[in-house]
């Protein structure tokens, strides 16, 4: 299982890459492996304001439907059209090509207190091992 050290993770199996006030979000290698072949993805629209834990979209495999939640608060500033057209990218490259949305962090937001609720790579790996 791939787990880049520079990302933050949630117990719902999303990842967040934080670069200044831009937050890139996707689902983890563990999640894509559990879901199997991903064939359809729906994401919120640009401009949508989301609070930490709000639903960001859904991911569907052949057999199942799963919600994706935002790891941090922010507004959607960019949606990855390529992953919508080619959902199988999530299975192939969950941390790079298959990023789902970019969020602008809420300027007056509480990013630090929200960050404290996220897991680093080691803690997330431990969490997944316990779940198996």
């Amino acid at each position, binding site marked *: 299982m791939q787990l880049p050290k520079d990302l933050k993770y949630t117990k719902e199996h999303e990842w967040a890459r934080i670069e200044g006030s831009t937050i890139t979000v996707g689902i983890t290698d563990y999640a894509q492996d559990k879901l*199997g*072949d991903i*064939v*359809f993805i*729906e994401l919120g629209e640009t401009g949508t304001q989301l609070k930490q834990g709000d639903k960001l979209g*859904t991911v*569907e*495999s*052949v*057999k199942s*439907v799963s919600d994706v939640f935002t790891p941090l608060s922010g507004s959607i500033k960019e949606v990855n059209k390529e992953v919508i057209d080619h959902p199988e990218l999530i*299975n192939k490259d969950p941390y790079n090509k298959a990023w789902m949305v970019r969020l602008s962090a809420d300027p007056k937001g509480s990013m630090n207190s929200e960050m404290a609720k996220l897991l680093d790579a080691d803690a997330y790996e431990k969490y997944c091992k316990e779940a198996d």
Partner: protein
Amino acid sequence: MHYTSLYETHKKLGARFMEFGGFEMPLQYTGIIDEHLSVRNRAGIFDVSHMGEIFIEGEDAESFCEWLTPNHVSRLAEGQAEYTFLLNERGGVIDDMIIYRLSGKSFMFCVNASNTDKDFRWIVQNKRGNISIDDMSQDIGMISVQGPLSGRVAEPVFPSVSRLKRFSFDVRDFMNKQVYVSRTGYTGEDGYECFVDKSVVVDLWNALMDSGRTHGIKPVGLGARDTLRAEMGYPLYGMELSETMTPLSANLGWVIKMDKKSFIGRDALASAARQGISKRLVGIIMNGKSIPRHQNPVLLKDRVIGEVTTGTYSPSLSRGIAMAYIDNNIEAVDVGIDIRSILHTGTIVQLPFIKK
């Protein structure tokens, strides 16, 4: 939880498991789409040992089976098989199954795993005449090889087996055990199903995998088994078939032979046929990329006209497809499906979704 004799084999092949019909069964190995396309284009091998096998033998076996099931039984020759049902008195489906004529006086029923116990009780409860009824499901393993190259896979193990006609079977020998090899399947492709003593089922799996290697054979789990049968519009018990629906609504009236004077459920079906059915089973292909799911409502304008029984992604069509029961008086082909509270459009099509 029950395990088939091939459980350890599946583990070694990297299977992911699911519970089905009380058995821990492989859901997938490499991935549902890959396995599905392997069966459509080359060959796939399935462990279907969870299926039940019930044997009916004795002087009165033929007349009993004729009474118990709605399809013609006396017209089956030794070595022939057919699709049929166990029906209740209301014409509802207790189970769907394949009946195999083993000899003049003996038959095998291949039934759904989750229904085996119920079926056995029903058969015993309706017993007539001089017959014995034996549930041999615990002793028999079942392997299915499906796909356009399945004949080439099976031939080295069972020479000349591809001479068999569709819905015929042979009694063969494998490692000194009897095997019934039947040209049947649940995928829409050419294929063979093998019933064998469970002591040699792992050896048979390995023999078929070895002979299939040059043909690109892949192990296939229940995930792809479901997408393969859905593309063909084949019903699955518990989804399209139940004790409260008759086969007439499921486009399966061809199985019911009303020229037979009596069989369980005949009176109810005769009256249902006179009154006409209220719901019918249709296929729906989605216009967009959304995927319908079990129990999604089907709409015409704002009105609910039916419900999805099977909804999935079709790997052959790269689209969402559904089977649904809709009001029989609906003639429209453009319908909506409410998928998690959002309306998506679809088109009613003739089943099967893909023509073979």
